[in-house]
């Protein structure tokens, strides 16, 4: 699946998107965050306060307990400041 990052999540990770292939035990959005954190300091920094991070699956807001099975695109970003 594709992971996409925005705003300071993007800046901290240092990329806008990437293809990720988490193992089967990564079931929810929250699991995926935990798995990404293992991949390196930049991820640990981006997700240092997981509660702050918002997520979307296939362009719809989801909570961290949402399952990622079947997701084409998972997005991570800070609280929104549009408007």
């Amino acid at each position, binding site marked *: 699946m594709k992971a996409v990052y925005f705003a*300071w999540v993007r800046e901290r990770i240092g990329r806008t998107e990437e293809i990720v292939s988490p193992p089967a035990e990564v079931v929810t959005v929250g699991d995926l965050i935990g798995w990404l954190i293992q991949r390196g300091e930049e991820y640990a920094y981006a997700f240092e306060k997981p509660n702050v991070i918002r997520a979307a699956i296939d*362009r719809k*807001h989801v909570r961290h307990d949402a399952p990622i099975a079947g997701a084409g695109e998972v997005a991570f970003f*800070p609280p929104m*400041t549009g408007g």
Partner: protein
Amino acid sequence: MGSVRIQREDFDAAAETRALTQGRADVGAIVTFTGLCRDEGASLSALELEHYPGMAEEEIGRVVEQAQARWPLLGVTVLHRYGKIAPGENIVLVVTTSSHRAAAFEAAEFLMDYLKTRAPFWKKEHRRDGTQGDWVEAKDADDRALERWGHPQA
């Protein structure tokens, strides 16, 4: 009848309003909200608005549908800009039309409250001294503003 556009270019509130009213006599009330880039401390050169292409349109479209289901609106237009925006320039426009004023006012406020917390946009400051500023932080007041409309989704 709901129009949502995400664009780099500026918008023309008068033209958007005209598009919702021209040639019809059933509109009794038009409410427009325009949000602008502010610079209170005289230190900002611009805000840079990043967005999630695709999701921005879709999410605002979903909020517009909720507003249409909740109030008897005759028209709704939402425009949101991205890219670098200087102090005094436009950022967002909401136009609602209805037969009566209460629906137009309430729907416009609802749309703005939801846009603020659900539309995937993020603002970064650029300072006049050439340095990059901070990412603008989300406000608790914006989350609280949602409470009057009942539970937000998701």
